[in-house]
C-alpha cells in the first residue's frame, strides 16, 4: 500500500478508535454503576462499539487491537445471551483491555514483544471469563455478520456534517482575528485623514485673513499709474495669480480629502460588519459540546476511588451544552483538578461514611448549565466531609499570611476565599488543609483569565461545591489603555472593576500603606509605575492635580492602581510575547495597536500579587527629584536611533531633567517652536537635517540664538570637532567615549 495513504488511513483510524474507546469505557462505567434496568441496552451498545472497533482495526491491520476488541465483543455477546452483568473482577479486566488498546493506539505500532504478550494474556483471560461465566454454554464468540463497508464510509453516510481537524479551525479563527488588526488600522487611517482635513481647513482660515490684502493688492496692481514699475506690476500679478490658483488647488484638495474620508468611513463601516460577522460565525463553528472534556472524568473517578480505597460515582449533567472550544480546552485541567480533589479530599472512606449515616458510595457531580445567553455555570460538587474552616484559619495564621488575631475575626466567606490564595507560600497550606489548597490558585487563575469567577461553598459533613461562572465564548478581548511614564499599557477590561479620578490630596497613609477612598470604602492604593518598577521621575497623575486610577480585585484584595492617564477602551487582539519571554511577571501578553505600535497587556492577577508584596516596603521615601518648588529644566534630545534616544532620555530623567525628544533636525525645529526648551542635546548624523545644520539654524535664528546646545556624535576627527565649534555648539561629546557623568557635568555647566 502507498505509505502516504496508509498513514492517512491510520490517522483516521486513530480518531475513530478513540471515539469507540471513550464510548466503551463510559458505557462500562455506567453498567457498573447502574443496577438492573438499562443493562440490555448497554450490552448491546458495548457489543456494537467493540465490533466496529474490531472492523476498523482490521482495515488498517492493527492486529493487537483487533484481537482485543474481538475478545471484548465476545464477553458482551455472552452477556447479551445470558443477560448477566460480568463479575467485578471481569470489569477490571475489561478496563485493562481498553487501556491496552489505548496504549497501542498511542504508539500506533503493531506492538513490541511485551505488548504482544500482554495482548495475548488479556485475550486469554477475557475468553476465560466468558467460559467461566454463570450458565455458560453459549459459544464464546457467536458469529457476527461482518459488514462489508469500511468504517470511514459509515461515518459519512446520511449526515450533513463533515469532519475537520480542530487545528484547521484554530487557524481559521486566528486568521479571522487578524482581521481585527485591519479594522483597527483603518480606524487609525481615518483619524489621520481627518487630521489632514483639519489642517486644510485651518489653511482656509488663514487664507480668509489675507484675502482682503490680496484684493487690495490686485486693485493697486491693476490701477493705471500705480507706484510700481510695469515689470514689478507684472511680477505682482504673477504672484497674485499664483495665490488664487493656490486657493483653488487647496479647495480642490480639501474637497477630495473630504470625499476620501467619507468613502473611508463607508469602507470602514462595511469592513467592520464583515469582520464582526466572520468572527461570530467562526466562533460559532468553534462551539463544542462539553462532553468533549467531560468524557475523561468517569474513568478517572473510578480509578482514583479504587486507588484510595473509596467508593465514588460521578454524575454528569449538561454534557450537551456547547461552549467555545478555547474555553473548554482551558477548563480541562481545572475540571480534572477539582474532580480529583473531590474524590481525594472530599469523599470519605466507606467506614467513615457509614458512621455518618451516608451511603457508602460517595457522589461527585459535575453539572453544566446555561445561566443566560452569554454565561455558563459549571458546578463541581461532592457529598463528602466539607472544608474545615477552622483549620484553614490556623494554617493561614501560621503561614503568616494574616495575623493570628485577624484570622479569628475573618468571616467564613473570607476564610474560604483564602483557599484559593497562593500568595506567600502555599506548600504547607496544601498539606495542612487536606490538599484543598493545591492548584486551587491555578484553577482560579485560569477561570479569571477566561473572564469568569469561581466560588466555593462548603458545609461540614455535607460536602463542598465549586461554582464556576464562565463566558460562553471567548468574546473579543477588550482592553483599557492606560498611560504611565509615557508608555501605553493595556489592562483587560473584564478585570477592571471600576475607574475613578481622585484628588492628589485624597491619598492617605493608613498603617504605613497608602489608601484612597472610593464609594466610602478605603482601598489600598499603589502607583502602577512602582508595581512595574518603572523609573520614578516625577509624581504621577495628570496635570490637573488629580490621579486617574483603576481598581482591580482578586477575591478579597481589591487594589487601586494610579496611572498618569486613562486613554481609551477598545478591542484588542492578544498575542504572545514570543518564545524568549515565556513568562514575564505582571505581563500577560502584547498586542499591536492601530498605529502599528506594540503595547504590553498587563496581568491583573500578578499586579495584585506584586502590589500586595510591594506594600510592605515603605513607599514614602522622598525622591530628590520630587521637590516641586524647584522649576526643572527641559532638555530636547535630538537623535534618530530609538535606543540611544531612550538611553539619553533615561539618563537625563533620572538626573531630574524634564525631556522632550525629536527624531531629526526638522523635527527638533518644530519642537523648539511649540515647547519651552532650555537645552538641546543633538546627534550629528541624522536623516533630513543633521546636527551641524540644526546647530547653524538655531544659531541663525533670532529667538534661539542663545540656546545651549551639545552635539553628541560618532565622528571623532579634528575637522568635525572644529566644524561643531564653528557652527556654534557649546560642547561636543564623542559617542565612543561617552559616559553619563561626562554628559551630566557638561549639562550642569551649561544650565
Amino acid at each position, binding site marked *: 500500500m502507498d505509505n502516504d495513504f496508509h498513514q492517512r488511513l491510520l490517522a483516521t483510524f486513530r480518531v475513530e478508535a478513540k471515539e469507540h474507546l471513550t464510548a466503551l469505557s463510559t458505557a462500562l462505567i455506567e453498567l457498573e454503576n447502574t443496577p438492573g434496568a438499562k443493562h440490555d441496552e448497554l450490552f448491546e451498545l458495548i457489543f456494537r462499539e467493540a465490533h466496529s472497533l474490531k472492523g476498523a482495526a482490521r482495515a488498517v491491520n492493527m492486529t493487537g487491537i483487533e484481537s482485543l476488541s474481538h475478545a471484548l465483543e465476545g464477553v458482551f455477546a455472552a452477556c447479551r445471551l445470558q443477560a448477566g452483568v460480568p463479575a467485578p473482577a471481569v470489569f477490571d479486566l475489561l478496563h485493562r483491555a481498553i487501556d491496552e488498546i489505548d496504549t497501542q493506539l498511542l504508539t500506533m505500532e503493531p506492538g513490541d514483544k511485551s505488548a504482544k504478550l500482554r495482548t495475548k494474556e488479556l485475550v486469554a483471560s477475557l475468553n476465560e471469563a466468558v467460559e467461566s461465566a454463570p450458565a455458560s454454554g453459549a459459544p464464546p464468540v457467536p458469529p457476527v455478520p461482518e459488514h462489508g463497508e469500511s468504517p470511514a464510509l459509515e461515518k459519512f453516510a446520511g449526515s450533513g456534517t463533515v469532519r475537520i481537524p480542530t487545528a484547521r479551525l484554530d487557524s481559521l479563527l486566528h486568521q479571522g482575528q487578524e482581521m481585527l488588526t485591519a479594522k483597527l488600522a483603518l480606524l487609525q487611517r481615518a483619524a489621520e485623514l481627518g487630521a489632514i482635513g483639519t489642517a486644510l481647513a485651518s489653511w482656509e482660515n488663514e487664507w480668509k485673513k489675507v484675502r482682503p490684502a490680496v484684493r487690495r493688492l490686485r486693485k493697486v496692481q491693476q490701477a493705471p499709474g500705480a507706484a510700481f514699475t510695469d515689470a514689478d506690476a507684472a511680477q505682482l500679478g504673477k504672484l497674485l495669480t499664483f495665490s488664487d490658483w493656490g486657493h483653488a488647488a487647496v479647495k480642490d484638495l480639501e474637497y477630495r480629502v473630504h470625499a476620501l474620508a467619507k468613502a473611508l468611513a463607508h469602507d470602514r463601516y462595511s469592513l467592520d460588519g464583515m469582520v464582526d460577522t466572520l468572527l461570530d460565525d467562526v466562533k460559532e463553528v468553534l462551539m463544542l459540546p462539553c462532553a468533549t472534556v467531560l468524557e475523561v472524568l468517569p474513568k478517572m473517578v473510578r480509578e482514583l476511588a479504587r486507588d484510595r480505597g473509596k467508593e465514588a460515582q460521578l454524575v454528569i449533567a449538561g454534557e450537551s451544552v456547547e461552549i467555545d472550544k478555547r474555553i473548554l480546552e482551558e477548563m480541562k485541567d481545572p475540571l480534572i483538578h477539582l474532580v480529583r480533589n473531590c474524590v481525594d479530599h472530599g469523599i470519605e472512606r466507606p467506614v467513615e461514611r457509614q458512621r455518618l449515616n451516608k451511603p457508602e458510595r460517595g457522589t461527585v457531580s459535575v453539572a453544566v448549565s446555561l445561566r443566560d445567553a452569554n454565561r455558563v455555570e459549571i458546578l463541581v460538587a461532592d457529598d463528602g466531609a466539607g472544608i474545615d474552616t477552622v483549620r484553614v484559619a490556623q494554617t493561614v495564621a501560621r503561614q503568616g499570611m494574616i495575623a493570628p488575631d485577624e484570622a479569628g475575626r475573618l468571616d467564613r466567606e473570607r476564610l474560604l476565599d483564602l483557599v484559593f490564595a497562593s500568595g506567600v507560600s502555599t506548600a504547607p497550606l496544601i498539606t495542612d488543609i487536606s490538599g484543598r489548597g493545591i492548584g486551587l490558585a491555578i484553577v482560579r487563575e485560569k477561570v479569571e483569565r477566561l473572564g469568569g469567577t469561581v466560588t466555593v461553598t462548603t458545609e461540614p459533613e455535607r460536602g463542598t461545591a465549586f461554582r464556576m461562572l464562565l463566558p460562553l465564548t471567548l468574546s473579543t478581548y477588550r482592553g483599557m489603555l492606560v498611560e504611565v511614564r509615557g*508608555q501605553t499599557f493595556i489592562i483587560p477590561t473584564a478585570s477592571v472593576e471600576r475607574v475613578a479620578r481622585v484628588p492628589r490630596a485624597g491619598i492617605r497613609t493608613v498603617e504605613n500603606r497608602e489608601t484612597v477612598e472610593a464609594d466610602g470604602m478605603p482601598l489600598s492604593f499603589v502607583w502602577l509605575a512602582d508595581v*512595574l518598577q518603572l523609573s520614578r521621575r516625577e509624581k504621577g497623575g495628570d496635570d490637573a492635580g488629580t490621579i486617574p486610577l483603576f481598581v482591580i480585585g482578586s477575591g478579597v484584595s481589591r487594589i487601586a492602581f494610579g496611572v498618569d492617564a486613562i486613554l481609551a477602551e477598545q478591542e484588542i487582539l492578544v498575542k504572545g510575547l514570543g518564545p*524568549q519571554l515565556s513568562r*514575564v*511577571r*505582571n505581563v500577560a501578553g502584547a498586542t499591536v495597536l492601530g498605529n502599528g505600535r506594540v503595547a504590553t497587556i498587563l496581568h491583573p492577577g500578578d499586579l495584585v500579587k506584586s502590589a500586595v508584596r510591594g506594600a510592605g516596603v515603605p513607599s514614602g521615601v522622598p525622591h530628590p527629584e520630587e521637590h516641586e518648588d524647584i522649576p526643572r529644566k527641559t532638555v530636547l534630545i535630538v537623535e534618530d536611533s530609538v535606543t540611544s534616544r531612550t538611553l539619553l532620555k533615561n539618563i537625563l530623567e533620572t538626573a531630574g531633567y524634564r525631556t522632550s525628544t525629536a527624531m531629526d533636525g526638522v523635527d527638533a525645529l518644530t519642537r523648539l517652536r511649540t515647547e519651552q526648551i532650555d537645552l538641546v542635546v543633538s546627534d550629528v548624523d541624522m536623516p533630513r537635517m543633521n546636527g551641524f545644520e540644526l546647530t547653524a539654524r538655531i544659531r541663525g535664528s533670532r529667538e534661539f540664538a542663545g540656546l545651549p546646545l551639545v552635539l553628541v556624535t560618532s565622528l571623532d576627527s579634528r575637522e568635525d570637532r572644529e566644524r561643531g565649534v564653528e557652527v556654534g555648539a557649546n560642547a561636543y561629546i564623542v*559617542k565612543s567615549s561617552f559616559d553619563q557623568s561626562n554628559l551630566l557635568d557638561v549639562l550642569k555647566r551649561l544650565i
Partner: protein
Amino acid sequence: MAKKVKNVTPPAGRKSPCREEKQILRARAQALARAPLPEAEGESLEVLEFLLAYERYGIEMTWIRETLPLKELTPVPCTPPFVLGLINVRGQIVSVMDIKRFFDLPEKGLTDLNKVIILQDGGMVFGVLADAVCGVRTIPRAELHPSLPTLTGIREEYLKGVTGERMVVLDGRKLLSDRRIVVHEETGD
C-alpha cells in the same frame, strides 16, 4: 550532467578525438560533481557581519531569518536588562535583546543600535540589536581561531571563533538554545 555530456559529443566518425573529448568531459564532470562536497562539509562559513559597540561580530546565516531597521521598540516591564523590548514584524511580536548586556560587557560609549537581526531556530525566535549590518561574508573555517585572551566571561561560551580580521563569530545555535536567554518568572517565586 549526463545530458550535457551527450550533447557535446561530436558526431561519430572522428574516432580518437571523440574518445579523448569524452575522457576530458568525464573528468570535468567528475570534478564538477565533487567540487561542492567539501564546502557542504563545512570548510567555510557563511556569516552575517555586523557592528556592535565598535566591535565586529558575525553569526552564521543558517540562524538568521531577516534583518530590519529598528523603528519602534516597546519596553517590557519586569524583565532583565538584556531584554530591550518588543517589535512588530508584520503582525508578529518579536522580543529584542541587547547581547552586549547579556554578555555582561561594560557599557562603553553611546551606540546607535539601529538594526535588528532576527535569529530563528525551531521554536525559538528573537532579535538582537546591532549598530550596523555590514553584509554576508564567507569565511574559510581554517581562518577561524579559537579565542583571544581578551574574550573572557560569558561571551566566550558563545564563541565559535575569531577571524584573522578580528571578527567575533558567535555560535547561533548555542544562543538560540540557551535557557538563560529565556525569561520565565512567575509572581509566586
